[in-house]
């Protein structure tokens, strides 16, 4: 299995990619002479048809149904659907109900980012993996003192890497336990993980007692203590990669086109009225924003809403051009485009895969800035949330979290065995694999800090005797509504149209259709494809022993979550033309 000297372009496919949620395939052509990925198609293999089978159902069932879109962040869907229903029914939950949802969602972020970072992504940076892909880097790590050893307890970077070894490393095992404790916190507020039992339009069914919040707070403080070690640990680990492998900033790098729809409503301001959405959107505890080339394009949720476009191009659907529009203008009188989710018709047409024609079940969501259809990504969630929040300069969560206009400060109080600690996430130079991962750790600390404030506010309600958590409502005959939040991995919107008291149209857009979208009608590749293309290869293994760790690091930095693809399907990405690579034929399947 040797390759010709003049050309070393080899097909390499990963299907399914492990240590993510769902079935993702990555199909690449790699130039082993130049050590670069030259082409990438991302694929997924699931079509379930939510938008189809929800038609005609009772709108109050929407959050129970849509939670089942995703098995790791289903509650984000349930929450988004409840927000969307609140708008449709014109109901504003009691403040306490909103604090309980915020505490549940904060726990979800704390849980999900933790298990993904340490037990799924972390394995890509563990001693076993680094030793098998870049032995020299592991040796260097063993010789490199951890700059923050005093904070996290691991003397060398090699010690950190060994602690991340699957099933054996002590940090790996500790993180798995933390993922269980944070799920207990979640279940205190939302009943069940991952499909909540206590969320309803109008509020929650959770019984709000002093005990409920004490049970949450004691666990939260253990998590706060944990994060005081984890933030410096990951800073040390990720900084080491830049140092040990010069040029590593190019892995998974793409143009900054980050989107965040905002998360964690402030009940003082959020009335779920579309006409006031610009205002209450800016009061969210995580700011919405579209960030292009490092600049904040908008943080107005109405503009964000109206800019969403669902393109086809290479997908197994019939176009809905010319069909009935459900919504011609929004509640403010703005025109609504035919390619907006409110007006989307989902018409599946399964077919043979043809890369010159249709090869994908995914549609291609894009954000239209007035000129271009931007193939935006969420960077797996945290980097976009922190970036938008930092630039927005709007957030001050009881002094625990503060946006400065160029950074986000996170202040954690004293815990059982550690003094108070402050961290500052600064806007990075790049949108790349390492920075997506680093942001994830900082956002875990952000959520812990925010949750401290939410507990204070919730307890204040209970102590004042305001224990009502739910507000009655009636379902109107006709309505159009939208819910915006952040799923763990990034932007989440649910668009609903009610006619004759039933669901006439319902289109959820989670992060993965954005991040994992196929090439659109204009030929623009989706973010996974774009980020993997041009990724340099640092792995030392020859093609026959190749693991593709740099590619996997690029892909996993987006926290792929394929069930959220909803419509997503991209076929197996097999390239049509054969590479003329004498001697490499054995490698091309």
């Amino acid at each position, binding site marked *: 299995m040797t390759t010709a000297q003049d050309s070393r372009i080899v097909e*390499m496919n*990963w*299907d*399914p990619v*492990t*240590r*993510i*949620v769902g*079935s993702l395939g990555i199909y690449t052509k790699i130039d082993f002479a130049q050590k670069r990925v030259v082409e990438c198609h991302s694929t997924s*293999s*699931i*079509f*379930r048809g939510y938008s189809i*089978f929800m*038609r005609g159902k*009772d709108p109050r*069932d929407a959050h*129970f149904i849509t939670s*089942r879109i*995703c*098995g*790791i962040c289903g509650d984000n869907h349930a929450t988004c659907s409840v927000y969307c229903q609140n708008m449709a029914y014109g109901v504003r939950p009691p403040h306490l109900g909103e604090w309980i949802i915020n505490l549940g969602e904060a726990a979800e972020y704390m849980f999900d980012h933790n298990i993904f970072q340490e037990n799924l992504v972390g*394995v890509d940076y563990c001693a076993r993996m680094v030793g098998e892909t870049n032995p020299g880097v592991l040796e260097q790590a063993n010789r490199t003192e951890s700059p923050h050893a005093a904070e996290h307890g691991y003397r060398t970077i090699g010690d950190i890497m060994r602690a991340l070894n*699957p*099933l*054996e490393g002590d940090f790996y*095992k500790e993180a*798995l336990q933390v993922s*269980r404790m944070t*799920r*207990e916190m979640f279940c205190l507020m939302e009943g*069940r993980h*991952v*499909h909540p*039992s*206590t969320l309803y339009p109008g*509020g*929650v*069914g959770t*019984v*709000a007692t002093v005990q409920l919040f004490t*049970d949450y707070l004691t666990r939260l403080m253990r998590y706060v203590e944990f994060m005081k070690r984890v933030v410096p640990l990951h800073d040390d680990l990720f900084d080491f990669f830049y140092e040990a492998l010069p040029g590593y900033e190019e892995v998974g790098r793409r143009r900054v086109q980050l989107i965040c729809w905002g998360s964690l409503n402030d009940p003082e301001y959020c009335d779920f009225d579309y006409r006031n959405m610009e205002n209450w959107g800016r009061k969210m505890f995580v700011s919405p924003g579209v960030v292009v080339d490092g600049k904040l394009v908008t943080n107005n949720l109405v503009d964000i809403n109206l800019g969403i476009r669902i393109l086809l191009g290479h997908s*197994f659907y019939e176009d809905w051009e010319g069909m009935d529009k459900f919504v011609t203008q929004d509640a403010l009188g703005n025109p609504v485009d035919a390619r907006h989710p409110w007006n989307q018709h989902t018409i*599946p*047409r399964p*077919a*043979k*895969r043809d890369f010159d024609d249709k090869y994908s079940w995914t549609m291609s969501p894009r954000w239209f800035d007035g000129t271009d259809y931007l193939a935006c990504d969420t960077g797996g969630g945290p980097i976009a949330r922190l970036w938008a929040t930092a630039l927005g300069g709007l957030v001050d969560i009881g002094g625990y979290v503060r946006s400065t206009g160029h950074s986000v400060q996170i202040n954690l109080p004293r815990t059982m065995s550690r003094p108070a600690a402050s961290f500052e996430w600064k806007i990075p130079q790049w949108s790349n694999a390492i920075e997506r991962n680093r942001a994830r750790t900082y956002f875990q600390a952000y959520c812990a800090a925010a949750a401290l404030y939410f507990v204070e506010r919730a307890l204040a309600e209970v102590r004042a005797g305001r224990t009502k*958590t*739910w507000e009655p409502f009636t379902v109107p005959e006709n309505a159009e509504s939208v819910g915006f939040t952040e799923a763990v991995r990034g932007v989440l919107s649910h668009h609903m149209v009610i006619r004759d008291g039933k669901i006439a149209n319902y289109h959820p857009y989670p992060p993965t259709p954005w991040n994992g979208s196929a090439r659109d009608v204009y030929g623009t590749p989706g973010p996974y494809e774009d980020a993997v293309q041009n990724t340099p290869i640092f792995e030392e*293994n020859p093609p026959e*022993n*190749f*693991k*593709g760790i740099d590619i*996997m690091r690029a892909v996993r930095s987006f926290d792929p979550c394929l069930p959220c693809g909803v419509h997503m399907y991209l*076929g*197996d990405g097999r390239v049509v033309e054969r590479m003329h690579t004498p001697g490499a034929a054995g490698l*091309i*399947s």
Partner: protein
Amino acid sequence: MTTATEAAPQPAAAPEQDEGPLVHILWMNGGLGCDGDSVALTAATQPSIEEIALGALPGLPRVAVHWPLIDYECGPEQGADNFIEWWHKADRGELEPFVLVVEGSIPNEAIKSEGYWCGFGNNPETGQPMTTSEWLDRLAPKATCVLAVGTCATYGGIHAMAGNPTGAMGVPDYLGWDWRSKAGLPIVCVPGCPTHPDNLSETILYLLYQVAGQAPMIPLDEALRPTWLFGATVHEGCDRAGYYEQGEFAKEYGSPKCLVKLGCWGPVVKCNVPKRGWINGVGGCPNVGGICIACTMPGFPDKFMPFMDEPPGARVSTTASGLYGSVIRTLRHVTAKTLDHEPKWRKKGPELLTGYHKTW
């Protein structure tokens, strides 16, 4: 995830290598699901997945868990550590014994002339994705046991609701309710949307003991559920049943009283969650203010929607809640029998019977 031996740097040198046969667990999450049951398993603590994988309980056979969610292996088809190779090995008869775990419902690939609804890896002969049903056709005859996890895989679940375009169904609908493995085991079903974490890990534990010859045939009810986990109703294990007995019913969500009049199906649903809590005794459904939407039942979701309306039977039984005995039990038995059966459209064949009008 890998076994204890495989996780070690030098697998061949591991001392446990000689201790009895190795049981492989092939976890296929390629059905129409959400991976919620995989995620639930990471929450289990009685036992935890690491305790199973590392042999932390007495008498456990050595296991190799091939599980996409947290598997170390992730190499390309053409290079090192290709995860899907384990499936091909099983298909070639090179893994013995193995337990096939199926997560997600099985779409009906026969209702269209081309294309596919879902796949898991590739078929080497065609270069096309291998569909979930094709994997089932290939591997079920070779598996010692087929374990269906979550309500999608067991009975069809959410993705098999009325109006669905894929004709999705559960594993027993696909293989047949009377299907037996080569070792004589029926399909084992652990329903729940998602499964209760410990219900799942405990069933895996039981099956491993059975495969190792240390436990008798797993006791299953008529819907193929382990009887010790699904023998009682939600209501029987609910700590709000006292309010029911006193005729005190919640009129608004957020009340600590019985939720039957707000949509709770607890009296007729077979599930132990209120008794067990969701994770380490924390959380649950009606016990913490969430109506039971019957997510463990074969009739889920269609026979329980709209979820937030009072169940039709509730009016009768709540009026009579002071009266105990055979009348109530008989009424419930009749209701439960219907709800314990799937809607008629979940079956194999070239026709799509869900009510969706095909556009292809």
